[in-house]
């Protein structure tokens, strides 16, 4: 079956857009083909800085013919309906329609429409211009004289040529006949901008890829990456060094060249006095070059690796020299920034933060730093941190945001703060907190463990959460502009992974005082609490569920534990969930859950029926059956044992205690009829059922557990 070759040749496409554009092209063309009934065998798309290319192989040469029956109006129906039917079906007169008998509703017309399949070449000629015109570039533009006209073609950068050919391997393929804004599809493309700029005539994919390679264009980005990586490793290795690998940079560099030529250059060793991260950011961000390290120590050496787009006439000498010159200038700038930063103490930068708005309703950055400082001091004893160190760390943690180096390389925030803090003689834990308090940034980021960092990191995240909750800027759906979900997950991980116990509502409530925005209060677990604090806690519970689900743990149990009042110590919640999960995996657990649910269901139905709650204590004198008495006795015993275990935070012990209920519950349901004819006995039995529910609530609300 025939193949399609499509190439869209343009001026330089931004590197970051190429991979998605290739994938979009593949998806749009193949989706359209399938929608047209043309099932293909395979497709692959490619991108270079100057072209998007697509090969689709094994497409049928024609669509199959379609036969369709369309039901029309009834015989003798209104003229307008008949005229509409003829128009819609393309029949010349009713003679071409058949009549279908229907004794009940009356006879009606049926049109048999035969739609002969079109040649794929024609289908392509219709669909490709539409795809090109509706291509989803993140940003597109107009150009040239035609841009004055309405409806001018938009592309990521000016589009110059289109190759579109379709045909069998054994024959000369046809050009798909279409033109957009004066660019006619053909079989001509161009090679490397400098090394092979002449037109090339191509027919099919194999021939296209090979001819491009001759014309110094490596079509496949994976192959370009492979070349760059292999050559870069080799160059470093040959001199006894090691390439510092960087996938993001590799992807970008491969999108900047059609013919990668890797070379190594060097810079003055005295620049190595600048922190390694600053050197790397300078060379990476500004120059798109790799850095090189000493294999044994992992320390950077004064070398870098560049990727040029050309085999230069002097073997690349001028290119290396030129890059070295630029790197020298950039590193001089970086060194200058770094050294000027060192001249100003971190605390002396703080007054400027009062001029920077953090959020119009939440004050300045200066306000935020003061709030974090206060909160960190409140948290310090709860996580076993030295209060003075925490105070100092929180005071300085954000100061590097106004340094020159961070201004230039925002990704170095925190890290530079650490360097500057150490340079001005701060305590190591205080300095470390500058970097660590931003962590963890996501589910895979490392969680700080040093108590000083933990206190500041928690304060940073809780200040954000409480603040945005106070002004009612919560995440909705996919919108989370202030990254509050990430902050919540960070707080959870800091607490749970470091096994710190903090009653969060109390902390939220006290920190809410730091904001002007107040909020309504509510009763929660016997205390007066801001409803926003409880609401925020349930947001954390949701985040915890998401995290447990991602870890493959039972997330539904989180609800069962949170449904108990006063659960705002996340570490305890996680431990209860853990113990509960293990218990429910046992035979006893499963049966007790079933028994408890049965009790709860009966209660729910009867309470609804009678419009009253059976929550009083049962009357022992009304027990008539042995199973009733046994259950009552078991409940009393289990309650006492479970509470004692809970008091010791022995959740596994509490579960084993609860497990002892199981035989009594099973026997009760086996032998006892709850809805006794005697209303007093019935009420007493319902109260007993309620006692089961109450007893299990020592560990969780079983009704929230999914079966």
């Amino acid at each position, binding site marked *: 079956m025939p193949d399609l070759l499509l190439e869209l040749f343009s001026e330089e496409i931004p590197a970051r857009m190429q991979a998605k554009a290739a994938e979009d092209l593949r998806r749009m063309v193949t989706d359209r083909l399938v929608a047209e009934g043309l099932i293909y065998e395979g497709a692959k798309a490619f991108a270079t800085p100057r072209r998007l290319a697509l090969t689709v192989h094994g497409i049928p040469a024609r669509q199959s013919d379609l036969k369709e029956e369309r039901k029309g109006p009834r015989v003798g129906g209104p003229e307008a309906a008949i005229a509409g039917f003829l128009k819609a079906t393309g029949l010349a007169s009713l003679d071409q329609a058949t009549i279908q008998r229907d004794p009940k509703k009356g006879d009606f017309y049926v049109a048999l429409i035969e739609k002969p399949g079109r040649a794929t070449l024609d289908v392509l000629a219709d669909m490709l211009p539409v795809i090109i015109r509706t291509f989803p570039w993140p940003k597109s533009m107009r*150009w040239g004289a035609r841009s004055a006209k309405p409806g001018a073609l938009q592309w990521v950068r000016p589009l110059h040529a289109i190759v579109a050919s379709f045909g069998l391997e054994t024959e000369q393929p046809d050009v798909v006949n279409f033109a957009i804004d004066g660019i006619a599809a053909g079989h001509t493309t161009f090679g490397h901008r400098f090394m092979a700029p002449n037109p090339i005539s191509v027919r099919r994919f194999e021939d296209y890829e090979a001819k491009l390679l001759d014309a110094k264009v490596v079509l496949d980005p994976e192959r370009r990456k492979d070349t760059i990586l292999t050559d870069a490793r080799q160059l470093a290795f040959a001199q006894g060094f090691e390439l510092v690998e960087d996938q993001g940079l590799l992807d970008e560099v491969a999108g900047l060249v059609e013919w990668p030529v890797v070379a190594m250059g060097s810079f003055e060793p005295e620049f190595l006095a600048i922190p390694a991260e600053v050197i790397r950011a300078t060379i990476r961000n500004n120059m798109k070059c790799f850095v090189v390290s000493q294999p044994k120590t992992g320390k950077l050496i004064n070398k870098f690796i560049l990727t040029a*787009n050309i085999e230069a006439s002097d073997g690349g000498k001028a290119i290396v020299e030129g890059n070295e010159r630029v790197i020298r200038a950039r590193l*001089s700038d970086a060194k200058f920034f770094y050294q000027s930063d060192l001249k100003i103490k971190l605390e002396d930068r703080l007054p400027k933060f009062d001029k920077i708005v953090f959020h119009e309703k939440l004050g300045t950055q200066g306000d935020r730093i003061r709030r974090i400082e206060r909160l960190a001091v409140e948290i310090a004893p709860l996580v076993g941190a030295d209060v003075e160190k925490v105070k100092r760390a929180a005071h300085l943690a954000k100061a590097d945001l106004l340094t020159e180096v961070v201004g230039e390389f925002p990704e170095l925030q925190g890290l530079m703060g650490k360097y500057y803090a150490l340079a001005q003689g701060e305590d190591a834990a205080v300095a470390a907190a500058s970097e660590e308090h931003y962590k963890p940034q996501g589910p895979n980021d490392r969680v700080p463990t040093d108590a000083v960092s933990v206190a500041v990191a928690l304060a940073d995240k809780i200040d954000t959460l409480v603040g945005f909750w106070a002004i009612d800027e919560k995440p909705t759906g996919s919108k989370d502009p202030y990254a509050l979900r990430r902050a919540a997950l960070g707080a959870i991980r800091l607490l749970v992974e470091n096994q710190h116990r903090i009653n969060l509502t109390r902390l939220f409530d006290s920190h809410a005082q730091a904001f002007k925005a107040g909020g309504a209060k509510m009763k929660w677990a016997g205390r007066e609490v801001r409803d926003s604090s409880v609401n925020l806690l349930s947001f954390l519970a949701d985040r915890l569920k998401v995290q447990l689900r991602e870890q493959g743990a039972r997330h539904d149990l989180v609800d069962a534990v949170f449904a108990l009042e006063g659960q705002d110590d996340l570490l305890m919640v996680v431990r209860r969930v853990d113990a509960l999960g293990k218990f429910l995996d046992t035979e006893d657990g499963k049966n007790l859950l079933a028994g408890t649910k049965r009790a709860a269901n009966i209660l729910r139905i009867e309470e609804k029926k009678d419009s009253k709650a059976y929550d009083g204590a049962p009357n022992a004198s009304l027990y008539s059956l042995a199973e009733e008495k046994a259950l009552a006795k078991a409940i009393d015993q289990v309650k006492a044992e479970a509470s004692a275990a809970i008091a010791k935070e022995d959740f596994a012990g509490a579960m084993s205690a609860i497990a002892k209920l199981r035989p009594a519950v099973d026997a009760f349901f086996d032998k006892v009829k709850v809805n006794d004819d005697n209303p007093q006995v019935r009420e007493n039995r319902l109260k007993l059922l309620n006692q089961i529910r109450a007893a299990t609530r020592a560990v969780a609300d079983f009704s929230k557990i999914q079966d």
Partner: protein
Amino acid sequence: MDSLPPAHMRPERSFQGLILTLQRYWADYGCVILQPYDMEVGAGTFHPATTLRALGPKPWNAAYVQPSRRPKDGCYGENPNRLQHYYQFQVILKPSPPDIQDLYLKSLAAIGVDSHLHDIRFVEDDWESPTLGAWGLGWECWCDGMEVSQFTYFQQVAGVECAPVAGELTYGLERLAMYVQGVDRVYDLNFNGHDGAERVSYGDVFLQAEQEFSRHNFEYSDAEMLFKQFAMAEEACKKYLEAGWKSGSNRKEHLMALPAYDQCIKASHVFNLLDARGVISVTERQSYIMRVRELAKACGEAWVHTEAGGAA
């Protein structure tokens, strides 16, 4: 060029030789070679030959050197590449010709940048000027890792859609000269291409100015006066715009877009001076930028109702 220019005019030896070579190249292409605009501007784009002429349907090809002032970038002459006053070479081609990239590469060849010896790259850089209400897509042009030009297809200027689109090329002349002359410090550039006692360096011409203006921009500029000047320029711009509508034209014909735009340029530069002086807070900063943009947009609106900016 037909014959080799004399040594002192060669771009790799002479800063002015580089400028003259570029002028010659674009003159040969058919551009009008303008002289710098006689006002302080932040970039060559501010010249009305770009900002205003980019608007409207009439073809326009021009090239010129524009001294550009970036008060904040002053380094008291101590930084080897950063200047508060430098030269841009600006080319504007409307509509953007189909071979504009080739034209640009040939201009590099004219000043001695051989594309078979050097690594020339077009690296994504979308351009936006919040003060001018302008944006476009294009690239930074790199030569061996150094950014030597900006290349932009204007999509919108002064809040008006460009129809047709103009192509703008901006050469950073000092950087380019440093590259072709092979010097690491801007002040070491040979300015006039002569040697020995005849030699004049970039430092001879500009070092003192860099020191003095840095002092002025950061420490001594009269903020109170500048605040007043900003307000005055803003008011004058609005006044001229209002007065410029030809009577009886029902706001269809404007007669004073250029003088109004001068006041917009003035306001923009005064704002840059105030910003460098550190007397504008972050929140105020945004509102000043918005105010200049409003002026620029109103000027653009007026310009498209003038002879040169209107329908062909």
